[in-house]
């Protein structure tokens, strides 16, 4: 073969040529591809590499770190997704690839997986802890609604709020509740209401729909706005079986928008009944109080002291008599006892009496009424009295004679 007649290209030129063709193609510049993830690999660089495949083929994909950081779930093999991006050639390998800007979980299964991943992650973070739940105000004065201004949800909310508790004014913050940008609007509205204390309660929600329709309420940003809101938040999304991440983050979860309004405010019928009950109890309490006071007065009036005012005096008099009797008896007893004791003492005294001695021939000498026991006490010429058993003699001392060895004789 003569190569002189044909143009020969090098590899880079060919790849570059193909790349040029592909890059000028409007379809390849921005397209969405549905498939199942396989050969998924997250490189240390942060770039994601995988293939998208279906029954008949596969296409290599790459997602750069900056795009992958925005993913709200972790891609896994077998996950069905729709990849958004452009197809072009990587000249070094001569391989065309889908450069993914975004991955969206496709189908209910994949959405559920994304949902569960986010729920578990935020749950582990403590965002749904029961301790974070704030009590709802018992009688709200202003309710903030974060929902779409159109549709059944806002009508249901206003109807139930107005019927149950018209005293609360309502501020609607209109937001889109599905589609591109919806979750940002919802989160922003909740943050604004919290920051400005726009009311004492927020209800956010929408009517029922598919999981994709409700997805804005499964976004992390909405969950965080709810969890960090200083005002209590009720989530009222969809119908009974639909549970969203917002439901977990909210202080109270309502099954439907109508149910949200029911949980948010008291029913005026019940409050009126409660008021009547309180009034009745108040009347009853005062009535029984007055009855009790009346009985007390009656009891006092019938008490003995008022019926017979002298009674306590008579009681005391009787007591006095009793004590007096006792006292007299005691006193008398003591007197007898003393008398007998005295008699005994007198007998003893009698036995020792000097009068008895005088009766036996002894005399007692007194001078100036002092007993004279020594000759030294008198001098000749002194008057003395001599007492005997039957009388006294007035005498004068004539002479004094002192005995020697007196001390001995004194004994």
């Amino acid at each position, binding site marked *: 073969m003569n190569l002189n007649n044909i143009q020969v290209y090098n590899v880079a030129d060919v790849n570059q040529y193909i790349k040029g063709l592909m890059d000028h193609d409007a379809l390849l510049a921005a397209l969405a591809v549905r498939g199942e993830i396989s050969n998924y690999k997250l490189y240390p660089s942060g770039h994601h590499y995988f293939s998208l495949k279906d029954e008949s083929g596969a296409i290599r994909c790459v997602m750069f770190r900056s795009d992958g950081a925005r993913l709200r779930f972790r891609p896994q093999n077998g996950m069905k997704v729709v990849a958004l991006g452009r197809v072009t050639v990587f000249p070094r390998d001569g391989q065309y690839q889908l450069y993914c800007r975004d991955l969206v979980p496709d189908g209910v299964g994949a959405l559920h997986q994304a949902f569960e991943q986010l729920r578990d992650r935020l749950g582990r973070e403590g965002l749904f802890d029961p301790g974070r739940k704030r009590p709802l105000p018992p009688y709200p004065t202003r309710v903030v609604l974060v929902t779409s201004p159109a549709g059944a949800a806002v009508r249901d909310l206003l109807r139930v709020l107005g019927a149950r508790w018209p005293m609360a004014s309502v501020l609607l913050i209109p937001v889109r509740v599905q589609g591109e940008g919806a979750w940002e609007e919802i989160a922003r509205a909740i943050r604004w209401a919290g920051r400005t204390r726009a009311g004492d309660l927020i209800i956010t929600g929408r009517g029922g729909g598919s999981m994709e329709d409700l997805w804005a309420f499964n976004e992390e940003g909405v969950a965080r706005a709810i969890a960090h809101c200083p005002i209590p938040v009720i989530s009222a999304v969809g119908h009974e079986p639909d549970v969203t991440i917002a439901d977990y983050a909210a202080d109270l979860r309502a099954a439907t928008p109508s149910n949200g309004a029911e949980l948010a405010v008291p029913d005026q019928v019940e409050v009126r009944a409660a008021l009547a009950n309180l009034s009745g109890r108040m009347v009853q309490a005062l009535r029984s109080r007055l009855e009790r*006071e009346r009985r007390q007065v009656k009891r006092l009036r019938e008490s003995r002291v008022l019926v017979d005012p002298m009674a306590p005096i008579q009681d005391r008099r009787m007591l006095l008599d009793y004590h007096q009797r006792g006292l007299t008896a005691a006193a008398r007893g003591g007197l007898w006892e003393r008398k007998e004791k005295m008699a005994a003492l007198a007998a003893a005294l009698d036995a020792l009496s000097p009068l008895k001695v005088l009766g036996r021939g002894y005399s007692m000498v007194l001078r100036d009424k002092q007993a004279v026991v020594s000759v030294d006490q008198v001098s000749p010429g002194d008057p003395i009295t001599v007492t005997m058993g039957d009388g006294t003699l007035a005498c004068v001392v004539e002479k004094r004679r002192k005995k020697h060895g007196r001390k001995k004789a004194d004994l």
Partner: protein
Amino acid sequence: MAEKKLTFEQAMARLEEIVRRLEAGESPLDESMALFEEGAKLAAQCSAMLDKAEQKVTKLTRQGDAAVEVPFVPEGTEGTT
């Protein structure tokens, strides 16, 4: 206490406290009578608030840089403009 300034919630709370105290029956009689009078007034106030209540609904809209509230009536409601 400036009774007229009480919110519904405060009025109800006070009323409940009054009923509790009256039912306990521990305050002197003249104080009980005063409590009863206050309670009756509060109950009447609460009822009046309920009777007068009329739902006010506004919508937040942006006017320039300011957020303003305008009256709101949802579509599909009677009397819609």
